[in-house]
């Protein structure tokens, strides 16, 4: 191969790479590919646990992701809350990240309004409730383990939790049959340490794709029932619920960009190895 072509390949302007990335992401948004989704056992681990809860059970959904992760986490958050409302579960939510408060309110209100338009009269305080942001992280979880209402005291609107119908009979964290933790950091470790290990609550991890590989060890140890990781996990959950949402449509773009990056790696290394071979030949001469 001509050395000039190799050098041009190795020094390609990064703006061309950025434009290619943008085009590849935009194409499926304009013309969807409708690629099929295959469900994995990790996502089934979360779905099945929620699905087998009897109607009327309380489930704790923890919102712990920042606005930066909203495009990746919102689709799976909405899918899980939709699943809970479909099963007539009572959703109790809480946040340990200050910036997660807005995401929690948006997701809960969005899905609740959607169900109300479909004729389900969901009521705040009876069918779902948001305790708001609680400072203290691990210390707060320890507080919930021993006295849930005492640790919360008031919800995000200032209502007294002791008089809320949804929390009737709830004394400690152990009174929840399941906990779904939506996170983009390592808070899941605190929930496992103080939640699962002390009271044995079942936990499902719903996280960004970058966090998922790190918690397979917890899944393998039985500390988690399942993992819903990134947009892929969200698309699998949407398939289980029977609809094509933002996560499923986003997988089209993700497929193309993954393959584009693989092509970049192969072309870049091909040019690099070709140059190395040429330089070695010139040295031997």
């Amino acid at each position, binding site marked *: 191969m001509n050395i000039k072509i190799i050098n041009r390949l190795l020094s390609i302007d990064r703006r061309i*790479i950025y434009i290619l990335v*943008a085009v590849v992401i935009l194409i499926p948004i304009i013309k969807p590919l409708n690629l099929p989704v*295959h469900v994995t056992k990790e996502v089934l681990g979360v779905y099945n646990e929620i699905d087998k809860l009897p109607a009327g059970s309380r489930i704790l959904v923890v919102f712990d992701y920042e606005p930066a992760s909203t495009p990746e986490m919102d689709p799976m958050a909405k899918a899980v809350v939709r699943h809970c409302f479909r099963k007539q579960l009572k959703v109790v939510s809480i946040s340990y990240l200050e910036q997660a408060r807005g995401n929690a309110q948006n997701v809960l209100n969005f899905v609740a309004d959607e169900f109300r338009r479909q004729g389900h009269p969901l009521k705040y305080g009876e069918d779902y409730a948001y305790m708001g942001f609680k400072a*203290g992280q691990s210390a707060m979880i*320890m507080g919930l*383990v021993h006295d849930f209402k005492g*640790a919360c005291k008031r919800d995000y609107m200032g209502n007294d939790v002791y008089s809320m119908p949804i929390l009737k009979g709830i004394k400690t964290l152990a009174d929840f049959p399941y906990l779904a933790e939506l996170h983009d950091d390592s808070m899941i470790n605190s929930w496992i340490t103080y939640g699962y290990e002390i009271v044995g609550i079942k936990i499902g991890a719903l996280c960004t794709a970058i966090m998922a590989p790190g918690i397979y060890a917890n899944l393998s140890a039985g500390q988690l029932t399942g993992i819903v990781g990134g947009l892929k996990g969200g698309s699998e959950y949407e398939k289980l619920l029977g609809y094509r949402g933002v996560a499923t449509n986003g997988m089209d773009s993700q497929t193309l960009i993954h393959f584009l990056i693989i092509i*970049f790696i192969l072309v870049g290394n091909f040019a690099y190895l070709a140059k190395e071979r040429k330089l070695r030949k010139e040295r031997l001469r």
Partner: protein
Amino acid sequence: MDFFKRKFPLIVVFVCGLMMIVAYYVPHKPFNQFQGEASNWYMIISAFALVLAFTSLMRSHYLKIREGKLGWGYSMVMFLALIVTMVVGVLPYDMTIHNKHLLGTRSGTIYMWIFDYVNTPAAATVFSLLAFYIASAAYRAFRVRTIDATIMLITAMILMMGRVPWGEMFSEFMTKKISPYLVFLRLDTLTSFFLNYPTVAARRAVYIGIALATVSTSLRVILGVERTYMGSDE
């Protein structure tokens, strides 16, 4: 004075550390109540840390504006954003403007408008830039210079293909159209293998290391061997 500066903090750390350890293992009264109380104390103390961080930030940007340093305009924007968000968020929800609930932090307020239409898009945009940087780095920097790099590259490509629909479709094609004996080469099977075995093994090793280091450091702090929290004099 020397007692309160040097000895008293060590006694407080020792007693509190010991009580938290006992409270974790003893589920009976009064120890199980201590953890709940400790979490309330922790929240109050962390509020003070927030005040400290706030004043430090304000001072830093104020000095930048006063001295006219490069980028002082952005400091002005920071002040404006801080004051507006703080005012609309701190004022009570019950205080209405033209009979509309626009203050406080609930849905439908100015604070949530700022969160939905300024904070979230800005944060998501900055995070999304990573996609472009990763693509550029993959082309320009990801080189098979060593055997380790080659193994990492091959694993990365298998995982990237195995986690998307085309990879699953390709795996289906391989096993159904070419040969069912190629099932062990299915991309989704290989991806699952990498995530459930080597990754778990490496992660467990890291967790054990972190746990041992945490126990060691905690014991050093509780027993007064590690005193960096007391300031530069120690």
